[in-house]
């Protein structure tokens, strides 16, 4: 008799969903989380005022020593640093001549605490892309298979957005969208007029603008427009595991949370071919334990899950568990961000915004969709915002005394922030492997990450950089800076990993010889092993991927539940 019906390794974006769905179906679920339990009273800092933020919110030398990698994240500051891992205790290596930013947090909820909350569906065009242009392998699903699961997870999570009727970016179940600013409305009108194939729409974001009764019942409230989400939200207004999926799972009475516990291996019975459970180590006491279950879900994040399976190798699975295809650890993807600009929009001096929108505008992909190119496949979407400059932009200007004070007290011109997220192709040369000798303090071999930007990513980023400038100019903005597309190289683009969308190392497919998972996120090799974190992604699209992880998690959990109910598993 196993300890649990189901073990879920990891409590983040996807693990929380698996736990909720299976607990609600009546199964006894253990969620094993390597990080600590988040307690809002201790961890949330969303009520800290600027004057109580230490050292003008500057990163200290101590922070840099403890977080040499993590402190470079845009969402790392004096009020969020508690959510990012200690790099010294959680090392990784990169292959010679490569760079990789592995940016992560170990706690209940994982990175769902500090995520950017942008939520965009993948479309039929994305699910067909590999088959059409021959990169990677064909997805074993199409949009119609996933659509009802997107509906389900969006309704529960709460996504704010507008209905647009675009084939490249399907509409969903949305709460009311955030308003665009005056300057963004102007930008939208001019860009859409100049480029008929482009759209500027309100960002789709996992913040509650009109909570449902179900959300209110879980203690979640309406977004208060503070834009402090990265600190944790006392209103429970943005989706994360700690306020949504895990509380729902807990309400069933079927959830056991096991925190501060890392999983080292999945145990595998060669006779039955099934996983029997996991080997764990308490990260504080180093006590090791075997926990057993009928079904194991890996949701340890792409690199974490890959490490566990590679470390589970044994004589019957010499290259790692669930790796008869040899694809485990290959095809590592991300989204590469870039094509930024500095530009201001004249006019609207008598207008301002009220509140702080935790969101911006979005420009869905048009490259190689409504607008072709001869040198690239796939595309990119843009996120951005046009706000008036504030005192931060003015304090470095000339002047002293009452005039300087007066100038700083008035909002400046409408100024754009914009970034393109480009798709990265699945490529077998981009890999995660285990270091042959080096281990972390818990005995887990250190991962060696080997990912490079290649020809297509560079071509896309050059297009994106050109397109940024063209759109700003079309909108009548004064462009102070854009990069020169000719200067862009694979090496000077934002390093792999820095998009914080790592995925693809245990891809789904139609053929067990070339993929790790079948159409149900189920291992071809080990029938009671499922993976629904980002590692299942067969291609990456250019959309922020979390809502897709959620949809596939709910779908795979439903499939596993049916197999367990029928006695097959």
């Amino acid at each position: 008799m196993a300890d649990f019906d189901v073990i879920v390794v990891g409590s983040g974006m996807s693990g929380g969903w698996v736990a909720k769905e299976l607990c609600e179906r009546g199964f006894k679920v253990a969620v094993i989380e390597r990080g600590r339990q988040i307690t809002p009273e201790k961890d949330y800092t969303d009520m800290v005022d600027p004057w109580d933020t230490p050292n003008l919110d500057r990163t200290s030398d101590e922070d840099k020593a403890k977080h040499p990698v993590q402190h470079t994240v845009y969402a790392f500051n004096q009020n969020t640093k508690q959510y990012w891992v200690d790099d010294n205790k959680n090392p990784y290596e990169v292959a010679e001549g490569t760079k990789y930013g592995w940016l992560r947090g170990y706690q209940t909820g994982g990175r769902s605490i500090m995520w950017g909350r942008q939520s965009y569906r993948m479309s039929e065009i994305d699910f067909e892309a590999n088959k059409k242009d021959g990169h990677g392998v064909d997805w074993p699903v199409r949009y119609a298979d996933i659509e009802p699961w997107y509906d389900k997870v969006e309704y529960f999570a709460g996504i704010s957005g507008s209905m647009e009727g675009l084939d490249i970016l399907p509409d969903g179940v949305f709460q009311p969208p955030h308003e665009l600013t005056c300057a963004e409305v102007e930008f939208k009108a001019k860009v859409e007029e100049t480029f008929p194939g482009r759209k500027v729409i309100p960002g789709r974001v996992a913040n509650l603008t009109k909570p449902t009764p179900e959300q209110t019942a879980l203690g979640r409230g309406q977004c208060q427009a503070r834009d402090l989400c990265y600190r944790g939200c006392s209103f429970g207004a943005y989706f994360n595991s700690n306020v949504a999926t895990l509380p729902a799972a807990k309400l069933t009475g079927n959830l056991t949370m096991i925190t501060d516990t890392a999983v080292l291996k999945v145990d595998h019975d060669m006779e039955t071919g099934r996983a029997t459970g996991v080997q764990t180590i308490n990260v504080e006491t180093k006590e090791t334990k075997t926990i057993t279950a009928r079904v194991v879900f890996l949701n340890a994040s792409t690199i974490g899950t890959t490490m566990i399976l590679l470390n589970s190798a044994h004589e019957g699975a010499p290259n790692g568990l669930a790796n008869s295809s040899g694809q485990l650890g290959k095809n590592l993807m991300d989204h590469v961000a870039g094509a930024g600009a500095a530009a201001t929009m004249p006019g609207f001096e008598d207008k301002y915004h009220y509140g702080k929108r935790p969101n911006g505008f979005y420009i869905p992909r048009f490259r190689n969709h409504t607008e072709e190119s001869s040198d690239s496949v796939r595309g990119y979407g843009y996120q951005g915002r046009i706000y008036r400059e504030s005192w931060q932009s003015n304090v470095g200007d000339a002047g002293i005394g009452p005039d300087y004070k007066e100038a700083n007290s008035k909002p400046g011109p409408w100024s754009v922030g914009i970034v393109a997220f480009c798709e990265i192709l699945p490529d077998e040369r981009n890999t995660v492997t285990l270091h042959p000798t080096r281990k972390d303090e818990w005995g887990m071999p250190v991962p060696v990450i080997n990912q490079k930007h290649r020809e297509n990513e560079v071509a896309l980023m050059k297009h994106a950089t050109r397109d940024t400038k063209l759109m700003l100019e079309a909108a009548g903005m004064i462009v102070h800076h854009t990069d020169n597309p000719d200067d862009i190289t694979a090496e000077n683009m934002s390093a792999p990993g820095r998009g914080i969308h790592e995925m693809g190392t245990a891809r789904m497919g139609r053929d067990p010889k070339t993929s790790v998972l079948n159409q149900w996120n189920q291992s071809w090799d080990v029938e009671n092993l499922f993976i629904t974190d980002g590692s299942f992604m067969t291609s990456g699209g250019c959309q922020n991927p979390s809502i897709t992880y959620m949809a596939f998690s709910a779908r795979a959990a439903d499939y596993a539940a049916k197999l367990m109910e029928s006695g097959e598993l």
Partner: protein
Amino acid sequence: MTNSFMSNRRDALKGLLAISAAGALAACKASGEAGDASKPKVLSGGPKLTTAEMALVAALAQTIIPKTETAGAVEAGVPAVIQTLFTEWGDDNYRNYWRAGLNGLEQHFLQAGGQNFAKMVPSQQANLLGKYDAKAYAEAGFDDFYKNMKSTIATAYYMSEPGATEELAYEPVPGEFKGCVPLSDQPKTWAT
């Protein structure tokens, strides 16, 4: 109802945070003191800004951001923030940079005005610093420390409670976002 619940919760949370911050500060100090005994002193002026240096910082800060209908830099506690950055956040390089920069300014104003900047009357301070400031922004490389210091002083001011809530507009819980409102509704820039 909701508001009073939230403001109570806010105060409670802030109380907790203040306690934990004080604890962290105490821990920092203890380790700092233990380290000091074994370290050679590389700074002639020591690990804190001296009384004279603080007088100069306060006079510069108050000349850059004087008291008007709202608090000036001194009333907003800016010098103390600078001292904390100097003692607790910065390393020796940072301290040397500030010390040298402040000394340069002191010497300049001694020559230009015949006495310590801090001892001048406000009109003379404004006159001399105004000229210096104009030159610093007109000539690249003239005094980068000064520009850096001014930006730090201003940041400390606008992040202070009087700076954020009185001089600017601060709304910790706006409740909703409106993308386009008349500036006349809110003529001051948002503090955050």
